[in-house]
C-alpha cells in the first residue's frame, strides 16, 4: 500500500518535470508512467509495455529497453522508482542522470525471459538503425534479418541510402531482401533479385533464412531459392571439412599440453608418474587463486590474470615436482612398479587434499575478454579460447625443445638419461639434474593446468580425465621423443574429430583406443622410436 502511494506520488512528480512533460505530449503515450509500470508488471504485461514504448519511436526509450534486455533495469521496492544500475552507478532510465535513492533503497531486478529479449532486440533494431555508431547499426540490421516486417521497408531504404560502411550496408540490403522475400505484396522480379542479396549479406544465417522462406515463396521463385541453398550447402561442406581439421588441431593441442610434461618425466626420465594429472589440476587451482587475489585487490588486471598465473603456476607445480622427486621418487629409481604405486597413491592424496581445502564443487575462473567469443575466418568459426590454447601449446612445445637442445641444463638432462654413470664421472650432479628434470616436467603440467581452466572444470578430478590420454599420446608418439609427442597428439586429435561426426563421440573414442592398440602391436615403440644403445638399458 505504502509503495503504491509512493509510486503514485513519484509518478505525479515525474509528470511535473518539464522535459519529460514535452516528451509525453509528443508521443501521446505517457512514457514515464509506462516505465514506472515496468517495475511491477508480470511477464505478459511487460510484453505489452515494451510494444507500447517501442511504438513511440522516441529515442529516449532506447536506454530503458537496452537496460531491460541486459538485465540492468531495477525496481526500488522502497520508493517504487525504476532505475538503471550498472556497477555502482544508479541512473534514471529516461534522463540518464544519477539518482540518489537513499540508504533504505531495496533494488530488485526487473526480469525478462527469452521471448521478451527477442521482442526488445527487434524493437531496438528499428530505433538504432540510424545510430552514429557503425557496430550499433550493424547489430540493428542483424536484428531486422531475424524479424522481417514489411512496415520497416521505408526505414531500411532510408538507412541503406545513408549508410557509408560497405559491410553494414550489405547486411542492411540483405535485411531488406528478406523483408521483400517474405512479404506478400512484392513482385516476382523483386523477390528473384532479393535472393542473391541474402546470399551475399546474411552470412551464416543465409541458409536458415532461405530455407525458412522456401515454403511460403511463390512457385516461380522456388527454383532460384533452391539453387542458392544448394550452392551455399556445397560451400558449407568444404568448409565443414576444414572446420573438422581445426577442431582436431585444437583438441590435439590440448592433448599436447597435457602430455608434454609427461613426455619429460615418463619419456625422458622413464618414471611412470601417475600424479602427473594432479600437477595439471594444481596448476588450474593456482590460476584460480591468482585470479581470486587479483579480483579482490587489483580488479583492473583481471584481463591479464591468466598471463600472471602462468609463471606462478609453473613455479608452484615445479617446486612441488622437485619435492616429490626428492621425497619419494629418488628412492624408487629402477623400480617402475613401486614408482607407479607410490605416485598413484600420491595422486589420491593430492586430490583429497584439494577436495578438503577447496571443497568438491567446481571453482570459477573467469575467461578474460580476449578469450571469449569467436570469429569468422572465411567460413571457419574459430573460438578465441581454443585459438589461444593452440598458440600457447605451440609456444610451450618449442620452448621446451629449446631448453632440451640448446641449454646446459638440457644437455645435462640428456647426458644423465643416456648414461648416468658416465655423466656422473664427468662431474654432473646427477641428483640435482634429476630433480630439475622432474620439476620441469611438473611445471609444464602446471602450465597446461592454466590453459585447461578455459575449457574444463576446475575440480579435484580435473587431472584424472587427462592422465590416460597423456600416457596414450606419449606411448603412441614414441617414448623419449618430443616430436613424437607433438605428432602423436595432433594425429589423435584430428583422427578423433574426423571419426566423431560418423561414429558419435562414444564410439569414436572407442575406435581410437582400438586403433592405438593395433598400432602398438605393430610398432611397440610408437611413431618415432628412439634408436641406438640408450634404449636397450
Amino acid at each position, binding site marked *: 500500500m505504502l509503495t503504491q502511494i509512493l509510486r503514485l506520488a513519484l509518478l505525479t512528480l515525474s509528470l511535473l518535470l518539464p522535459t519529460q512533460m514535452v516528451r509525453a505530449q509528443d508521443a501521446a503515450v505517457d512514457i514515464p508512467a509506462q516505465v514506472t509500470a515496468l517495475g511491477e508488471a508480470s*511477464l505478459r504485461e511487460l510484453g505489452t509495455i515494451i510494444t507500447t514504448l517501442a511504438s513511440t519511436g522516441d529515442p529516449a526509450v532506447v536506454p530503458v529497453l537496452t537496460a531491460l534486455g541486459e*538485465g540492468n533495469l531495477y525496481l526500488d521496492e522502497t520508493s517504487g522508482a525504476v532505475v538503471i544500475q550498472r556497477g555502482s552507478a544508479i541512473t534514471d532510465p529516461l534522463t540518464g542522470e544519477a539518482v540518489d535513492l537513499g540508504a533504505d533503497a531495496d533494488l530488485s531486478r526487473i*526480469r525478462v*525471459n*527469452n*521471448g521478451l*529479449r*527477442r521482442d526488445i*532486440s527487434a524493437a531496438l533494431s528499428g530505433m538504432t538503425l540510424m545510430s552514429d555508431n557503425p557496430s550499433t547499426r550493424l547489430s540493428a540490421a542483424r536484428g531486422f534479418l531475424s524479424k522481417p516486417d514489411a512496415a520497416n521497408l521505408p526505414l531500411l531504404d532510408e538507412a541503406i541510402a545513408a549508410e557509408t560502411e560497405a559491410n553494414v550496408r550489405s547486411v542492411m540490403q540483405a535485411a531488406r531482401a528478406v523483408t521483400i522475400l517474405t512479404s506478400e505484396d512484392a513482385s516476382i522480379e523483386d523477390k528473384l533479385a532479393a535472393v542473391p542479396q541474402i546470399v551475399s549479406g546474411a552470412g551464416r*544465417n543465409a*541458409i*536458415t533464412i532461405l530455407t*525458412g*522462406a*522456401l515454403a511460403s515463396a511463390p512457385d516461380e521463385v522456388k527454383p532460384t531459392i533452391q539453387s542458392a541453398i544448394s550452392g551455399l550447402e556445397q560451400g*558449407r561442406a568444404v568448409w565443414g571439412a576444414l*572446420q*573438422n581439421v581445426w*577442431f582436431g588441431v*585444437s*583438441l590435439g593441442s590440448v592433448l599436447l599440453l597435457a602430455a608434454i610434461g609427461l613426455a619429460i618425466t615418463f619419456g625422458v626420465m622413464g618414471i*611412470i608418474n601417475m600424479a602427473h594429472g594432479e600437477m595439471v589440476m594444481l596448476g588450474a587451482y593456482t590460476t584460480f587463486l591468482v585470479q581470486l587475489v587479483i579480483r579482490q585487490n587489483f580488479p583492473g588486471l583481471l584481463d591479464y590474470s591468466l598471463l600472471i598465473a602462468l609463471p606462478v603456476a609453473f613455479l608452484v607445480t615445479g617446486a612441488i615436482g622437485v619435492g616429490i622427486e626428492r621425497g619419494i621418487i629418488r628412492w624408487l629409481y629402477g623400480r*617402475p*612398479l613401486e614408482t*607407479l*604405486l607410490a605416485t*598413484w597413491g600420491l595422486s*589420491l592424496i593430492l586430490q583429497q587434499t584439494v*577436495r578438503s581445502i577447496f*571443497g*568438491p*564443487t*567446481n*571453482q*570459477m575462473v*573467469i*575467461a578474460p575478454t580476449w578469450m*571469449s*567469443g*569467436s570469429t569468422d575466418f572465411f567460413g571457419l*568459426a574459430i*573460438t578465441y*579460447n*581454443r585459438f589461444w590454447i593452440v598458440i600457447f601449446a605451440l609456444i610451450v612445445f618449442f620452448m621446451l625443445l629449446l631448453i632440451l637442445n640448446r641449454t646446459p641444463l638440457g644437455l645435462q638432462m640428456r647426458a644423465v638419461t643416456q648414461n648416468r654413470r658416465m655423466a656422473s664421472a664427468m662431474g654432473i650432479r646427477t641428483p640435482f639434474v634429476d630433480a630439475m628434470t622432474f620439476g620441469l616436467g611438473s611445471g609444464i603440467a602446471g602450465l597446461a593446468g592454466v590453459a585447461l581452466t*578455459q*575449457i*574444463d*572444470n*576446475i*575440480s579435484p*578430478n580435473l587431472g584424472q*580425465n587427462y592422465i590416460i590420454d597423456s600416457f596414450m599420446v606419449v606411448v603412441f608418439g614414441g617414448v623419449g621423443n618430443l616430436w613424437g609427442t607433438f605428432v602423436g597428439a595432433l594425429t589423435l586429435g584430428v583422427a*578423433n*574429430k574426423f571419426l*566423431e561426426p560418423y561414429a*558419435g*563421440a*562414444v564410439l569414436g*573414442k572407442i575406435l581410437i583406443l582400438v586403433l592405438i592398440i593395433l598400432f602398438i602391436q605393430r610398432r*611397440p615403440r610408437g611413431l618415432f622410436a628412439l634408436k641406438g644403445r640408450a634404449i636397450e638399458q
Partner: protein
Amino acid sequence: MNFSRAKSALLAAALAGSVSLPMAPAMAQEDTIKVGILHSLSGTMAISETTLKDTMLFLIEQQNAKGGVLGKKLEPVVVDIASDWPLAAELARQLIEVDDVDVVFGCWTSVCRKSVLPVFEELNSLLFYPVQYEGEESQRNVFYTGASPNQQAIPAVDYLMSEDGGSVERWVLAGTDYVYPQTTNKILEQYLLDKGVAPEDIMINYTPFGHSDWQTIVSDIKTFGSEGKKTAVVSTINGDANVPFYRELGNQGIKAEDIPVVAFSVGEEELSGFDTTPLVGHLAAWNYFMSVDTPENEAFIADWQKFIGSDTRVTNDPMEAHMIGFNLWVKAVEAAGSTEADAVIDSIVGLETPNLTGGTAKMLPNHHITKPVLIGEIQDDGQFFVVWETEDLVPGDAWSDYLPESKMLEADWTAPINCGNYNTETKTCGGSAQ
C-alpha cells in the same frame, strides 16, 4: 622400460583403489536409530553427492534438536561409495547387516540405484532416492523422491512447444551415454513423434561421461538449428561435462534467444563453479529452485547456510528431495510407532509433508511423490528465474504412458494389488519390477 610389469602394476593399483574404508562413526549407543547415508564422497560424482551427504547430516541434526524420533536420537552412518557401483552394493549390504541401519538415504546415478536395489529387496530395508530419474521402475523397498519423466522432461517439452516457450519445432536430444538419458530420450522421442514432430526434426546425440571437447557437437547443433525452424536442445548431460558444454555454446555464440537449451541435470550447485553471464536465458526444469520466494524456503536456506558455515553455499532440487523424503520417513515411523521396514512401507503411503515451494508432497501408492514443475531461466548470478510452473502438483508416474511397452503398467504398493508393475489390461502382476 618393461611394459608388461607396468601393466600388471596398473591392474594392482586399480584393484587397490576399489576397496576403500567406510567412515562410520565409532560410537554405537544403545538407544539410537541409525540412518545410513550412501553417497559418493570421492570420484566423479563427489561434486554432486558430497552436498547431499551434508544435507542428510543437517536434517538429522535438526531432527535431533527437536528430540529425535520415537524418543530416540538419530545416528548417521556415512559411507563413501567412491563413484563405484559394485562397491555401492557392498556398502549397502554392510550398512544394513553390519551397522544395522533402519533406513538408507542415498545414490545419485541410476546405475547406483540399480546396483543396490537387489540388496534392499533381499534384506528388506528402505532406500530413499533423491534424484530425478528415468522412471520405468517401482520397487517395494525404494521411495523415489526425485522427479519421474512426467514431472520434469514432459512438462519442459510442453513449455518449449507453447507460444511462451518459443513454439519450438525442431529438437536436439543431447545426453550422457547411460541409462537415465537413454530412457528419458526414448520417452521424449516417442512423445514428440506422437505430437506430430517429423523424425528428421529430432537429432539424438550421446557423449561419454566427463566429455570435455564439445566443438563438433555444438557446431552440429548450430547447423541443425539453421534450417529455418525454431530449434531447442533438451539436455540430459550429466555431471562435469556440463561446464565445457555451456562454455562452448557461449563461445560459439549460441544465444538462448536463438537456440535455448533446457537441462534436467543442471542446478544451482553445478552452476556455482561457473561464470553464467553467457548463459543467461538457457533453461532448466526442476521441482525446486533456490530462488523461489516462500517463507519455508527462506528458512531452509538460512538454516542450511548456518549449518554448513558459509553464506554462499547454494541449495538445489535433490536437497529438497532428501528433505521431503526424510520428513516423510519421520512421519511414517511416528505413525507406525516402529522403524521396521514393513511397518514403515505400510504407513508411509498417503502421508503428506510441505515442500519448499509452497505446496505439499504426498507419498503415492507407487512410492513416488507429488511435485510442482518449475521452468527457470539461468541468471547471471547463477540462480534461476522461474518463467513457468504447473498450476497443480503433478503426481509422479512410475511407468511412462508414452512408451507402448509400459503404458498399461501401474505400480501400487497397497493392498490388494501390492505390485510394482501391475498390468491393467491383463490384471496381473509382472513379478520382479525393475
